């Protein structure tokens, strides 16, 4: 069988639509790879062989008939097992939903199906999307394909690994505090957390409703824009979804970064691994060479990000997980794993009578201050560049018994979540064999600009071509 594992969507789509490559051939190759690698990597909870093959056959038939198709037609993709998929088991990575089979599709899944993607399977995750390492899954941890002894990052662990290991060409994820950006960075792939409200959340199992964003992971920046073209837009089923028109995100993606102002926030470059810091500053230099102007900036409330986030998020988690009563679907509440229980307890406490003002309300006020920092800075610069993670992918087991240390892995990602602004995680090199990523953050609804910056950088570096040896 030909090896298709390095194909991008952009390349594969051209081959499929020009009838050089059959969608069936590509889909069978990805399914084969997913099955083979799953014993090692555990990136899929469910593999949807039959559905994917049927879809691929349909795409080949439509193309043979001369039908004009979306660039995603026939493209094998993974879906985080937090997205409702009609007639396909959806577990949220928890034993509590082990046997749950949704009777409807999430809006983003519906849109992707309309574009005729081939769903390879439902990807593994930290149960209920609670985690930064992928280790909280009730279906076993996912492993990093660049080093099997290390975590892939979470919570969209299986999504990042399925793309990085060539079992799918893209994968959907969710990002509440870094759950797309962190695994993307740990696995050398591109991950987008869009602006809050850019992509419908309908049908995606809710974690923390004022923070949850639906995004995706791809090999390249261009591919990432192709997926957003399908998922972005208004949805009558999600009242938090904006009516603001979405863009053609691939249009003008080649536009030069000349004259663009990039802000480097000093608070994000203090006290962490100097090797990671240097790689990110090298990336910034590369963009400077391409004509961007670099400015030092300050986001003074950065140090309060994690504390604010770990009040708001568990509070909303406790409220969203209150619906699991074992009456309408799923098993009973004792089936929650320890991390979900821990967050439910913490969130119930911070919301309880007498504590609401001191915790949740206080956090929502500090959140305003954090957002104001960003709003002010975006009057001076076009985008911000900063690290995704203060550390390299860590060893499995290293942080499981110390939740606070695990929570602090989110230190550089929670602020974009709290402020609602979009952030694109782009690979920016390796330390030894371990990948490092950087965030390109912009004002509300600036996804197009983030893609232009990410694309310009990627053209110079092509880090995505360095694939794991598995």
């Amino acid at each position, binding site marked *: 069988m030909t090896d298709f594992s390095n194909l991008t969507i952009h390349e594969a789509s051209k081959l499929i639509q020009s009838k050089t490559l059959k969608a069936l051939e590509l889909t069978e190759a990805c399914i084969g790879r997913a099955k083979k690698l799953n014993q090692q990597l555990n990136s899929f909870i469910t593999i949807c062989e039959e559905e994917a093959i049927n879809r691929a056959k349909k795409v080949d038939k439509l193309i043979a008939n001369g039908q004009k198709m979306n660039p995603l037609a026939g493209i094998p993709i993974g879906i985080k097992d937090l997205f409702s998929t009609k007639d396909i088991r959806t577990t949220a990575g928890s034993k509590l939903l082990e*046997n*749950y*089979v949704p*009777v*409807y599709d999430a809006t983003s899944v519906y849109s992707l199906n309309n574009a005729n993607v081939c769903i390879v399977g439902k990807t593994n995750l930290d149960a209920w999307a609670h985690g930064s390492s992928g280790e909280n899954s009730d279906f076993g941890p996912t492993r990093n394909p660049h080093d099997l002894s290390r975590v892939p990052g979470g919570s969209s662990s299986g999504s990042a690994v399925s793309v990085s290991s060539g079992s799918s060409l893209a994968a959907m994820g969710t990002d509440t505090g870094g759950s797309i950006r962190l695994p993307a960075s740990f696995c050398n792939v591109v991950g987008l957390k869009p*602006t*809050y*409200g850019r992509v419908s959340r309908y049908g995606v199992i809710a974690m923390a409703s*004022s923070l949850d964003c639906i995004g995706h992971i791809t090999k390249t920046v261009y591919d990432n824009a192709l997926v957003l073209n399908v998922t972005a837009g208004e949805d*009558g089923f999600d*009242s*938090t979804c*904006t*009516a603001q028109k979405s863009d053609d995100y691939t249009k003008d993606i080649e536009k030069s970064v000349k004259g663009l102002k990039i802000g480097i926030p000093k608070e994000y470059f203090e006290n962490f691994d100097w090797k990671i810091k240097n790689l990110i500053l090298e990336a910034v230099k590369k963009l400077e060479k391409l004509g961007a102007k670099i400015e030092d900036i300050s986001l003074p*409330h950065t*140090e*309060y990000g*994690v*504390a*604010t986030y*770990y*009040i708001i998020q568990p509070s909303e988690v*406790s409220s969203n997980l*209150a619906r699991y009563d*074992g*009456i*309408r*679907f*799923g*098993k009973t*509440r*004792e089936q*929650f794993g*320890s991390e979900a*229980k*821990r967050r*439910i*307890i*913490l969130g*119930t*406490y911070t919301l*309880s009578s007498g504590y609401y003002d001191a*915790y949740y*309300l*206080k*956090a*929502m*006020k*500090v*959140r*305003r*201050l954090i*957002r104001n920092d960003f709003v002010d800075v975006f009057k001076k610069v076009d985008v911000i560049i900063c690290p995704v993670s203060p550390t390299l992918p860590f060893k499995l087991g290293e942080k499981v018994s110390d*939740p*606070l240390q695990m*929570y602090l892995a989110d230190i550089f990602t929670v602020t974009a979540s709290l*402020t*609602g602004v979009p952030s694109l995680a782009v690979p920016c090199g390796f330390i030894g064999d371990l990948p490092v990523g950087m965030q390109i953050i912009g004002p*509300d609804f600036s996804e197009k600009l983030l893609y232009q910056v990410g694309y310009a950088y990627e053209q110079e570096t092509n880090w995505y071509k360095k694939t794991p040896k598995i």
Partner: protein
Amino acid sequence: MKKKQKPEIDIDYVSKLANIPLSGKEKAVFEEQLKDVLNYISKLNGIDTDSIEPIGHITNLQNVLREDKPAPSLSQDDALKNAPKTYNGFFEVDAIFEEQ
């Protein structure tokens, strides 16, 4: 200097509020771990937020309403499909007021 007091959390009370049964071991572990977390998040107390408006919807969407018109929805069969216990087309639950 007085040692910084760790905030207390009444695990029994909170687990009852949350309707989450916990084992004795879980209670002990969570109590310790959550003390650490509460201690960490107490750093917000140092910020003056008296005149700050809390965040509502982050990008300021307001009053998103749809037209009040019925539309197709889940069928009764679909709605009951994942229920562990059903009776005559209804969800079945344990009795709440049962005579002993």
